[in-house]
Each structure stands twice: as structure tokens, then as C-alpha cells.
């Protein structure tokens, strides 16, 4: 049973973190939604449609952040053969896929009233769509190969190659002509946004981050149990 020793430790840690992460998540979502939908002012140009920003921007941040989690986990798994890191990447990918999908969808729903179109094939939108397909490809590779170690290695290599897309997303609004506005929070000279709009944005960003922690821990526990199941069933077949 020594091969489960490490996951057992992880499960204890996860169970210690989960209740706190859930409290932060619930509080930040409640307060963030109150600020985003009610307490914050309408934009002088965009009117009430600006409220989409408070869920669009954190989704886009999490889409990129989660990809970096998958990439770092993949690197750790490839270099040090860390089995838990491999499972962390596998567990994080569906969360990243959902955040990327939400960034695209909420962006389209914001683009239609403000730009007059749901979609433009510019650098920012296209590179985020590529991110969406990178998540899909990573998850598909996990399923494509029967041998789990090989599948994990192939998926991890794809995740590392795809890292090149992250700076492209980040700087796409500076490099190419676009309808998409440039960064207004993560700037060298500080946020260029009024504080009553910054607060709901940052509060919901905290909520999204806490949500990520909660679901990542759920999914890592799930992956550990699935790994145990495949070990147990192979022992049964042999026995």
C-alpha cells in the first residue's frame, strides 16, 4: 500500500483546505455579485452592459492561469515523474476549458452590443479560441491512448508546446489591430479603472480563484481514486 502513501497525505491536505476555500468562494461570490450587478455604477459609454466585464475578465484571467497550472504540472510530471503532478494537470484541464469557454461566450455577449458583432478574427479572440482547442486536445490525448503513462506523457508534451500561446494572448492587443480593448488592470502604471469598478472585478476574481481551488481539489481526489480503481481491478484480474 506504500504507493498510496503520497495520495493519502494529499487527501488530508485537501480536506483541510476545502472548507476554507468554500467559505472564501461563497463570500466572494455573494459580495462580488452584489457589487457587480447592483452597487457599481453603469459605464458612461457602455451603460449597463459593462456589468458583463465583471464575469468576462476574471474568466479570461482564469483561462490563462489554469493553463499555466496545467503546464507547470506537466513539466513537473515529465521531469520528475511526479504522479500527483500528472493528475493535477489532468484534473485542472476541464476547469480551464470551462473558464475559456465562458471567456469566449461572455465576450461575444459583450461584443454584440458594444462592437456590433459577436466575433472578429483578430489576434485576441483567435488566440483564446486556440487556447480552448489546446485544452480540448490535452483532454483528448488523455483518452486517446490506453496506456495511462503514455497518454499522460503525450498530453503533457502538448501542454508544454501550447505555452507559447499564453504570451500571444497577453500581448495580442498590443501587437495587432483589434476591436478588443487593451489591458486596463494588469498595467505597469497601475489600473486605469475607477475604483468602484475595480472592486467588483477583483472580488469576483477572488471568487473564481477560490472556485478553482475547490473544484481542482475535488477533481484531484477523483483522479486519485480512479487511479486506485485501475490498480485494484488490475490486481483482481491478475489474482
Amino acid at each position, binding site marked *: 500500500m506504500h504507493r498510496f502513501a503520497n495520495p493519502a497525505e494529499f487527501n488530508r491536505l485537501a480536506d483541510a483546505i476545502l472548507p476554507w476555500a468554500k467559505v472564501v468562494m461563497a463570500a466572494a461570490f455573494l459580495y462580488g455579485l452584489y457589487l457587480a*450587478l*447592483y452597487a457599481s455604477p*453603469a459605464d458612461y459609454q457602455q*451603460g*449597463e*452592459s459593462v*456589468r*458583463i466585464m465583471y*464575469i*468576462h475578465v476574471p*474568466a479570461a484571467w482564469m483561462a490563462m492561469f489554469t493553463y499555466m497550472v496545467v503546464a507547470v504540472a506537466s513539466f513537473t510530471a515529465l521531469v520528475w515523474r511526479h504522479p500527483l503532478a500528472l493528475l493535477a494537470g489532468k484534473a485542472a484541464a*476541464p*476547469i480551464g476549458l*470551462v473558464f475559456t*469557454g*465562458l471567456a469566449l*461566450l*461572455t465576450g461575444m*455577449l*459583450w461584443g*454584440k*452590443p458594444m462592437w456590433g458583432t459577436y466575433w472578429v478574427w483578430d489576434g485576441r479572440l483567435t488566440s483564446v479560441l486556440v487556447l480552448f482547442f489546446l485544452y480540448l486536445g490535452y483532454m483528448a490525448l488523455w483518452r486517446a491512448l490506453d496506456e495511462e503513462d503514455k497518454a499522460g506523457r503525450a498530453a503533457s508534451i502538448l501542454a508544454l508546446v501550447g505555452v507559447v500561446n499564453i504570451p500571444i494572448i497577453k500581448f495580442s492587443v498590443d501587437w495587432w489591430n483589434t476591436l478588443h480593448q487593451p489591458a486596463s488592470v494588469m498595467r505597469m502604471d497601475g489600473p486605469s479603472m475607477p475604483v468602484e469598478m475595480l472592486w467588483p472585478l477583483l472580488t469576483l476574481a477572488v471568487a473564481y480563484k477560490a*472556485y478553482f481551488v*475547490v*473544484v481542482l481539489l*475535488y*477533481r484531484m*481526489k*477523483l483522479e486519485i*481514486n*480512479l487511479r*486506485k*480503481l485501475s490498480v*485494484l*481491478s488490475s*490486481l*483482481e484480474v491478475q*489474482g
Partner: protein
Amino acid sequence: MAEFLDMGGYAAFVWTAYGLTALALVVLAVSSLRAGKKARDRVEQLRPRRRKGQA
């Protein structure tokens, strides 16, 4: 209240964006939790059976 729901004429966009976000986040969390519970139950089922088999 009607004014709040109208979102300055952008109701269709704002509420669809918030609705889709809520739906996706809830579905992902609940399905992760359910799959986790199912896997845990199966691990619990397999383990005692194996021990009995060995004994």
C-alpha cells in the same frame, strides 16, 4: 425591480452572460463532486472484497 432586470436595455446580453456563467460553473462543480463520490464508493466496494479474497 423592473429597471434592474432591464439592465438599461442590455438585459438579453447581461443576463445571458451571467446565466451561462452560473450554469457552467455549477454543472462542472456538481459533476466533479458526483464523479468523485462514485469513484470513492467503488474503491470502498473493491477493497474489502479483495481482502476477503486474500484471506
